[in-house]
């Protein structure tokens, strides 16, 4: 009887510990979660392991885009996305975004891209999580005047394959041609 109690206690503890660890992967500051009420449009996607694998079963092998997606998702553990679109500029404060960025200033994470544009106010940060010199996760924080997006992908993935999916599904690809106008600040390869 005592053994059974111990087993139960241990399993509950392990479940709590794993959920806490998972929660630590990506925690949106409370203020940022409040943005939902201010946003014109909100996208929230929370997909962890089993859900992700289940959803990927429905990806068609005949559709080339879904085939690409299946390759990207194959080894992933979780995907979390929050995207807020606002009617007007200034709906969120830089401090709110900074609080989020601060979570990834740890030895586990490396900031590989940090773009600060005074010209059009498009700021993008890309953090990589490396484990045993292998990609174990990616976080993208994109702060635009009327849009704020957080993406956290947990698990090994090919960044180029993911970028390939950026302009698909009938949505025009982003204009990657250089505008020729100088950018205020672009940081790249700021490994910590």
């Amino acid at each position, binding site marked *: 009887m005592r053994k059974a109690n111990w087993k139960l206690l241990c399993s509950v503890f392990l479940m709590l510990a794993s959920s806490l660890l998972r929660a630590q992967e990506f925690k949106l500051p409370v203020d940022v979660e409040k943005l939902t009420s201010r946003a014109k449009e909100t*996208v929230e*996607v929370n*997909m962890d392991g089993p*859900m*992700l694998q*289940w*959803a*990927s*079963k*429905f*990806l068609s092998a005949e559709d080339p*885009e*879904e085939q690409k*997606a299946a390759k*990207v*998702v194959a080894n992933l553990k979780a*995907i979390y*996305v929050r*995207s807020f679109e606002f009617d007007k500029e200034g709906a969120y404060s830089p401090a709110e975004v900074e609080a989020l960025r601060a979570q990834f200033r740890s030895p586990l994470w490396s900031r590989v*891209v940090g*773009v600060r*544009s005074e010209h059009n106010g*498009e700021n*993008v940060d*890309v953090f990589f999580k490396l484990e045993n010199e292998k990609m174990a996760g*990616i976080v*993208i924080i*994109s702060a635009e005047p009327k849009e704020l*997006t957080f*993406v956290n*992908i947990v698990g090994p993935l090919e*960044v180029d394959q*993911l*970028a*390939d*999916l*950026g*302009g*698909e*599904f009938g*949505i025009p*690809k*982003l*204009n*990657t041609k*250089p*505008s*020729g*106008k*100088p*950018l205020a600040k*672009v940081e*790249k390869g700021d490994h910590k």
Partner: protein
Amino acid sequence: MNLEDKNPNRMGELLRKSLQREEVPAGFADGVLIRAARQRAAAHDSHVPSWFRIFSQPLLRWAAFATISASLIGGGIRYREVRREREEGEAAKQQLMLALHIAGSKLRLAKSKVNEIHTSRPEREPSTNRSRSKS
């Protein structure tokens, strides 16, 4: 038939007697009908497969009906479950594709910004040299 019977009058009488209409015994018609029905049933049974004859018993007939009904209901429920599962799966797939699209587009944005700075750098350097040479 003896010699006396060879008398034509006697023969005629006998013939008339034998051809005389007689009343059938009571219940004769019912007996014929029952026999005919039995014969018909026997003929019908010979066309029915032997395994099917077990359903002639009411209890088994009801059991068969109940089994078929249960199978149909169970099949219907399972079909609805599969359909609901498929709908939920499709919705999850759409969510997944949306998440990947957002992630991919933001990654492309970061890449484009990096490309911009790379392409704009070599242009700026010669212009600064030119301005220096002019001054």
